[in-house]
């Protein structure tokens, strides 16, 4: 832990996040809810404020200095996102509001235009609702079958069950999380993609959680679609990224119609703009896009190896500390996991746990985590969840563990 902290300089990192010095209920804030939404470093805040104070204008259309500067800044985010994902080309980066919109875009456009009724979409048994509901909607409107690859009791994808779903040759698309927001489990993206491709299916990864903790290389894992949201990656809300292979984007029809996404419009016929603008109707989240660039540069400045090492050490520490508490059950025991730990206490309901933690300045999430089917699979009504970020310290995990012991006593 100390070695990592020295390389990593956690004090310097924390100093970049003004909110972390806030008091909550007169206590030091212990923010363990980064998987819901991460806090923002100064660089992100400054980039957004700076853009609004010095150069703000609408983009892609103005002929004046302000619009040109802002267009350039916004488009630099596309380059940064392409670099972050190791995309082949910047045109493969489509800006969306969040991962939910990215998945809906694929379901609506690829799902309706390329998938054929009777084909199947495979998801896993540990998806967020955002990667379940769009496919149910496609199933109901387009005659797609929805198949669910079960997870093991340790909270990992059951690879045999996954592979068996392809037996009839009808699977057209796999849409699967790259890291569970409840269990912290990483899914083996490369193997998932290889099996999908061997069976003639494309694969989409929901990287909302994974990209926060680990370097993503869409070419190395051989993905077809990959999406993430800015606000979990220390960036603003309202901006996210859908990456897809250029040939897929070229073949897909637009999702939303309007300004920005057209080549020419007449009352008889409209032609679409080139990829990626074909998928970016309307004035986008300009300031948020500029903020995302700053977030990506922040991540790059720290470096994924240091982030991953820091968070792996934190997660090991948390699992050891929390496991030692009597009456606690930790959900998910995946070998390959990131900084998310869900648990229940025998003595108290997750909501009561979260309320008492909050009174000590400790922020966790409690409930179903937008993953109701997974809760049923785990046999629980909900969990409390502690999730870690770049700024989380071992001392904060110790505070969580100590307070959970007091909560046990309180409800004993």
């Amino acid at each position: 832990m100390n070695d990592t902290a020295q390389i990593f300089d956690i004090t310097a990192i924390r100093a970049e996040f003004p909110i972390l010095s806030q008091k909550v209920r007169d206590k030091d804030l212990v923010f363990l809810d980064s998987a819901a939404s991460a806090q923002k470093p100064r660089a992100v805040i400054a980039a957004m404020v700076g853009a609004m104070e010095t150069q703000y204008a609408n983009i892609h259309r103005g002929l004046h200095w302000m619009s040109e500067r802002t267009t350039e800044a916004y488009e630099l985010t596309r380059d940064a996102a392409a670099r972050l994902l190791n995309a082949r080309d910047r045109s493969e980066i489509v800006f969306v509001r969040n991962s939910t919109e990215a998945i809906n875009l694929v379901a609506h456009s690829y799902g309706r235009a390329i998938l054929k009724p009777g084909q199947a979409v495979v998801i896993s048994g540990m998806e967020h609702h955002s990667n379940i509901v769009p496919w149910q909607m496609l199933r109901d409107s387009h005659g797609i079958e929805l198949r669910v690859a079960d997870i093991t009791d340790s909270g990992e994808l059951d690879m045999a069950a996954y592979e068996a779903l392809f037996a009839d040759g009808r699977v057209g698309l796999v849409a699967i999380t790259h890291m569970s927001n409840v269990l912290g489990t990483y899914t083996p993206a490369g193997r998932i993609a290889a099996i999908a491709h061997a069976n003639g299916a494309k694969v989409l990864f929901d990287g909302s959680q994974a990209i926060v903790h680990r370097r993503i290389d869409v070419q190395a894992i051989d993905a077809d679609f990959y999406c993430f949201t800015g606000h979990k990656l220390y960036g603003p809300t309202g901006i996210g990224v859908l990456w897809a292979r250029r040939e897929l984007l070229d073949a897909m029809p637009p999702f939303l119609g309007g300004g920005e996404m057209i080549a020419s419009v007449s009352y008889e016929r409209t032609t679409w703009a080139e990829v990626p603008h074909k998928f970016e109707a309307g004035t986008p989240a300009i300031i948020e896009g500029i903020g995302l660039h700053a977030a990506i540069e922040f991540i790059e400045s720290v470096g994924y190896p240091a982030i991953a090492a820091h968070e792996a050490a934190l997660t090991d520490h948390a699992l050891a500390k929390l496991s030692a508490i009597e009456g606690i059950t930790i959900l998910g025991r995946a070998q390959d996991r990131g900084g998310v730990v869900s648990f229940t206490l025998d003595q108290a309901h997750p909501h009561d746990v979260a309320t008492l933690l909050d009174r000590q300045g400790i922020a966790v999430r409690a409930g179903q985590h937008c993953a109701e089917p997974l809760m049923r699979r785990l046999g629980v009504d909900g969990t409390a969840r502690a999730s870690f970020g770049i700024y989380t310290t071992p001392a904060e995990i110790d505070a969580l563990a100590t307070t959970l012991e007091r909560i046990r006593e309180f409800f004993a």
Partner: protein
Amino acid sequence: MFEDVRDLYNAEIIARGRRPRHMTRLAAFDTTARGDNPMCGDRVQVWLKYAADGSIAETGFDARGCDISKASADLMVEAVQNRSPADTRAMFERFRAMAQSGQCPDCAAFAPLKPLAAVHAYPSRVKCATLPWHALMAALEGAKDATSE
């Protein structure tokens, strides 16, 4: 460590949250409804049996949720006993107002519910306290489901 939560997590609430007295499914009932809080997973089912004069003769519930929702359901059962549906609706409105504001202008009428008065200081928990009441209102209306969102 937790003295500051004793306003809500008082002895009455904890006792009823841990060991509800009325958490039973009625063998014979006239109406039932379920309350769901989809964001957090809480669920309360309420069963009602009416007396000959139309008042509430008996209420039972089953709950999957936190201490606050269970204790609220348990207190509710006692509070609505022998009341007419109109009285019960009026009581819910007063209870909801108390849960949201902490103010209790007509407290004498429902003293049994006062242990929950502090819930207004916990905004994210108000819906836990009102969920069983939403289920009860749905049962009175003859509806099947309600939410406290």
